[in-house]
């Protein structure tokens, strides 16, 4: 098999090299022929052309025209982008995941106009080492828009957040943006499972990194941080929309894989006292959305790999993304954008690489699925 079959990735790079070599010294006639041929090939495969951001703009235009139809309520609309779950090793070990985050940075830098900020959704490193975190910081440093950082369990459990905080500051913070109150949480604390087992820091990290490793504890926001959240929100009027970022989903989806936050109900109880709440989370590597009371939840895509939908517990409102093509490194991965609307709801665009982007309008969630249902998958999980 090795000799006869090349990976999509290998073929892609070979094709690209061939085109680039040919382009280097060709006249205009040949150039036109070449570009027509590559476009033809792209269209024949039904693939999104390399400039995926063009399609995002189409999706945004559909959102934009709605801005006028809702009365302004003190907050101005704005757009922000995200990149999440890159799971980096150092360059010398693994180029695959590096290539993916670099692709996301290129995507976001190509957005015109630029987003107000870029949220990085956690799990920058695979095993939390200083080299991995620094590599990630260097790559994210190429983003043109300001970056807001969130921490994930893969960044945390080698040194319990020491290096991450040295590089990026406190993992819990809040700020106000164009009439919206934004909070970033550290939702991946775990009760001590390592001391009794006499684990080294590396063993602790490896255990947490195993999604199906049953030895670890469940994620939690924890008493102290919930207190902090209560105090922070006490200063904000109930009608101010909230935008909450957490690495794990702030609800209970599937316990064995920590698609889960143990004290989710307690956090929701704090949040739901505010009129409009949107929670955006990483960790699950899939198109995922949910509505609990007045709280809308969106999961972010990973740049590194898609995760299977869990065997049970999937929120009813989630429309699955198609199963990924194992022969294409980028399929099922991607980045995305959010639009905070004047009516204080948040729409999202899942910018799935090598596929059509999927827009999920807030109206879909708040109507309980009655309007604006995103397209159904052809190949759902089983």
């Amino acid at each position, binding site marked *: *098999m*090795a000799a006869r*079959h090349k*990976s*999509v*990735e290998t073929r892609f790079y070979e094709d690209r090299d061939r085109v680039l070599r040919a382009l280097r010294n060709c006249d205009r006639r040949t150039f036109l022929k070449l570009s027509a041929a590559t476009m033809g090939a792209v269209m024949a495969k039904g693939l999104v052309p390399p400039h995926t951001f063009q399609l995002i703009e189409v999706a945004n235009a559909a959102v934009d025209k709605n801005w006028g139809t809702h009365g302004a309520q003190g907050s101005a609309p704005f757009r922000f982008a995200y990149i999440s779950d890159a*799971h980096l*090793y150092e360059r010398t*070990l*693994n*180029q*695959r995941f590096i290539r993916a985050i670099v692709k996301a940075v290129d995507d976001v830098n190509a957005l015109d106009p630029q987003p107000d900020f870029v949220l990085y959704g956690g799990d920058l490193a*695979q095993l939390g080492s200083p080299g991995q975190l620094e590599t990630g910081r260097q790559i994210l440093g190429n983003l043109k828009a300001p970056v807001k950082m969130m921490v994930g369990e893969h960044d945390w459990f080698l040194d319990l957040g020491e290096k991450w905080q040295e590089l990026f500051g406190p993992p819990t913070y809040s700020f106000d943006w164009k009439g919206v109150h934004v909070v970033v949480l550290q939702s991946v604390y775990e009760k001590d499972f390592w001391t009794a087992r006499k684990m080294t820091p590396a063993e602790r990290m490896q255990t947490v990194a*195993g*999604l*199906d490793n049953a030895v670890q504890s469940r994620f939690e926001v924890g008493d102290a941080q919930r207190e902090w959240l209560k105090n922070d929100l006490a200063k904000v009027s109930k009608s101010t929309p909230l935008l909450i970022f957490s690495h794990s989903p702030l609800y209970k989806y599937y316990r*064995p*894989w920590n698609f889960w936050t143990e004290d989710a109900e307690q956090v929701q109880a704090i949040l739901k006292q505010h009129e409009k709440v949107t929670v955006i989370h990483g960790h699950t590597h899939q198109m995922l959305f949910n509505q609990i009371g007045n709280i809308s939840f969106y999961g972010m895509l990973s740049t590194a*790999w*898609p*995760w*299977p939908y*869990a*065997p049970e517990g999937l929120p009813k409102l989630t429309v699955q993304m198609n*199963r990924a*093509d*194992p*022969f294409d*490194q980028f399929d099922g991965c991607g980045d995305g954008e959010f639009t905070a609307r004047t009516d204080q709801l948040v729409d999202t665009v899942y910018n799935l690489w090598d596929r059509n982007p999927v827009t999920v309008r807030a109206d879909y969630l708040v109507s309980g699925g009655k309007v604006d249902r995103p397209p159904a998958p052809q*190949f759902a*999980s*089983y």
Partner: protein
Amino acid sequence: MVTVTAALVAIGLVTLRYLAAADPTGVAQAQSSLPAHSVPSASRGAVVVELCDGVTHTEVKGLKPGQQMTRAQALAVTGQLMAEWRRKHPDRHWVLAQNDQASPSASSPENPARGNIAGPGETANTKSQQGDTYASFHERDFKVWQAQTDAFVNYGNQVFHSAKLLGSTIGVSCDMCHPNAANTHPETYPKYQEQLQRVALLRDMIDWCIENPIKGKTLDPNDPKMRALEAYILAQRKGVALDYGKH
């Protein structure tokens, strides 16, 4: 002869138990070599045909190695082998499973679900009405077999979760993308994989994933690691209906 057979079975069991004790990791189970049935060599210009009991055999005179028997010859040889087996086991009741109406089997009132296989806690010899070899095993034999199988699957579990055992050059293991082997769908093989331009078996897909996301070297189908990976992946889908060709 009956006692000899019983002794052979006993030796077999002792060996199994010894293995179970000596192979808690399941690595030995993952090895591919099977015990060979050694038959006496044939006199010049003849072929030896053996029965599945590993003991009974006969020589077909005038049949050269590589030559086919005629249908009549084949019937004569198998008839002769079975007659020999019956002679050695006068107490055994040879069941032609499909059409032996007389034999009290599958749904006998004492043992409705399990047919003639002795279940846990039953003394096989008193319950079994057919006197066949399989039914003469005991509860602890089933336990030994289960322990062996679990150890084998567990070794596969380790390989699946270890970038090192998989020989990854980039620190990647299967579980990173397939927690609990989710989305590996072993029940859908064989199936046509467009990207491989062929009908693939589960092991072809495993190889593909080792070569690509894992960036390791493909495994020989009989490599202990390949066998263990297959075992682990299949074990995670216990109870799921086979559905070959599904996408």
